[in-house]
């Protein structure tokens, strides 16, 4: 398996601007199979923008994206799905008027010649929900009547549909209970065992340190440090996030620098 040695996903020199805002400037990112890469940074650092580019929701102004060493373009979310990329968006993109099954399979419905395979989709939905140990009463519940945490479970369950190679999770635990958060972290570890590459965006350093193999820091839309999670000290990471010189951060490990992470 020569190919498997190289990175699963390579992003090189990615730039993206929104009018006058340079959301991303010359950003590099690599994700290998069997690897969880945490993407962290202050608010507005460009994390979600990068995630949306991988997900095909935004196209970069410049830069190169390779999957398994092959250059690709990801013009649409459907293209991302076909390339094996599954994404949980920060403002989890779901339709409140549709039920859980419909949301899980939205944009990737199973169907025969004319008819949707609703029964098959509902059966799979039940299994996926069971596996995630989600507290969702029924696969036929409309999304509008679920709690924020339950909706987030549905968004995460979407990554179990199809056979993704790369999973992008943008703040997947933001509105979850302690128990549910642990469930999601276990889920991420399972995905890694199965050989997927995972990008985890989070502000929660405990979660990041618990599951990630590598930490990539973005600051003001640029790469600002890469750490092997095991060897990185908390202070080093904080310094990379805030942009404080490392020595300063080491000397004042609490107070102002810490509050920047929130």
């Amino acid at each position, binding site marked *: 398996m020569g190919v498997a040695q190289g990175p699963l996903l390579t992003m090189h020199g990615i730039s993206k601007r929104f009018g006058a805002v340079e959301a991303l400037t010359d950003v590099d990112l690599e994700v290998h199979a069997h690897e969880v890469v945490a993407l962290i940074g202050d608010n507005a650092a460009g994390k979600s923008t990068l995630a949306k580019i991988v997900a095909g929701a935004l196209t970069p102004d410049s830069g190169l994206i390779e999957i398994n060493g092959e250059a690709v373009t990801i013009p649409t979310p459907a293209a991302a*799905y076909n390339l094996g990329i599954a994404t949980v968006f920060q403002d989890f993109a779901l339709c409140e008027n549709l039920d859980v099954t419909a949301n899980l399979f939205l944009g990737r419905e199973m169907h025969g010649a004319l008819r949707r395979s609703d029964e098959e989709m509902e059966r799979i939905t039940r*299994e996926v929900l069971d596996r995630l140990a989600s507290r969702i009463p029924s696969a036929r519940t409309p999304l509008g009547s679920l709690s924020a945490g339950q909706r987030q479970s549905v968004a995460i369950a979407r990554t179990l549909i199809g056979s993704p190679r790369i999973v992008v999770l943008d703040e997947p635990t933001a509105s979850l209970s302690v128990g549910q958060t642990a469930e999601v972290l276990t889920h991420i570890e399972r995905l890694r065992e199965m050989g997927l590459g995972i990008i985890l965006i989070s502000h929660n350093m405990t979660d990041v340190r618990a599951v990630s193999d590598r930490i990539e820091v973005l600051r003001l839309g640029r790469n600002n440090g890469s750490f092997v999670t095991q060897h990185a000290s908390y202070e080093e990471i904080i310094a990379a996030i805030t942009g404080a010189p490392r020595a300063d951060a080491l000397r004042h490990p609490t107070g102002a620098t810490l509050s920047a992470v929130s």
Partner: protein
Amino acid sequence: MSTDLNLVPTGGPLTKNSSWRERFGGLGGNARQYGIFAALVVIILLFQGMTGGRLLYPDNVAALINQNAYVMVLAIGMVMVIIAGHIDLSVGSVVATIGGVTAISIHDWGLSWWLAVLLALVLGAVVGAWQGFWIAYVGIPAFIVTLAGMLIFRGLALAIVSQSIPVLDPTFNGIMANSLPNFLGRLGDADILTLVIGALLILTTIWAQMRSRSALRDHNLAVEAVGVFVAKIVLAALGIGVVTWLLSRSTGGTPIALAICAVLIVAYTFIMGRTVFGRHIYAIGGNRQAARLSGVSTRSVDFWIFVNIGVLAGLTGVIVTSRLGTALAAAGNGFELDAIAACFIGGAAVTGGIGRISGAIVGALIMGVLNQGLSIMGVDPSWTQVIKGLVLLLAVAYDLVSKRRAGTQ
């Protein structure tokens, strides 16, 4: 744990341990739907009483269907547009333009009736593609595009028809004037063909319901309680049976207009309820951005629902021209409002994402029965308008209040 679709079944038979909520979840969603059917029945019985039984004279039932075919056809297209979160104000004008071209094609160019019908449908698709292009690919709100269309196509209708163009083709005019041929003869005073069609419809309904129920069973999914299921089928069969019995004793039997509407209703109910396209229409009406991020190609869905309502407006052009035997520049005036009202009476949500073909059809019938009943009673047409307006207002108000009581926004 596997990311494949071939997950191994985990749970036991779910029908056994499914919760009350799960069993009746589907019913809650349909409560509004049953309510609107009940309202139609109540209104029919009310007018049946007030007109001394004349409302349901067999020939009056046939006339009711012929007179309201245009609203039903347009409401089908309109409810899809409304579910997707748009509106179409242009259909009345499009009906006039296409009706005009159809009349010219028969009167001046000597086209045969079926070529003229085909031309109307193709023109409808072209008009729909034109409006769909501006809405889906340029991103102009449908309200604006179809408001412009309302002006453009009314102007075009005036330009090409000026006042009226007669159509003398008896087959073309027969589309609305005639019924399906009574080639099976009559049993007493009942048209046998109508009875056969009615019986087939009832059997098909039962078969389809049983099939979808057993499909759910096969997949270990929760199904409706037996009582609800049987009641639903009995009521549907009863409804079809009564209409069949009445129509079979009308002068012509089954109006061709009814056959057209029935085919459309069945086809579009399937499209909206069972196909991927239908699911995507509901999705973009519910949350366009989410649908796009999930991989739905929202632009092409938008485009095709406008092509679709264009084709249905073309068909309505045929229906109206055939019924009058002449094309009028003023034809279709206010049709867009009738269709929109039918959708909202039938439970479509102003914000999009919610609505049904059956609801829109029942909405159209409620307005039709009001029209017919009031006119049999000799009520002035201006008051009929007032009453229809109030019914629309009350229907939507009832909807909002009952939703608020149920606790969902």
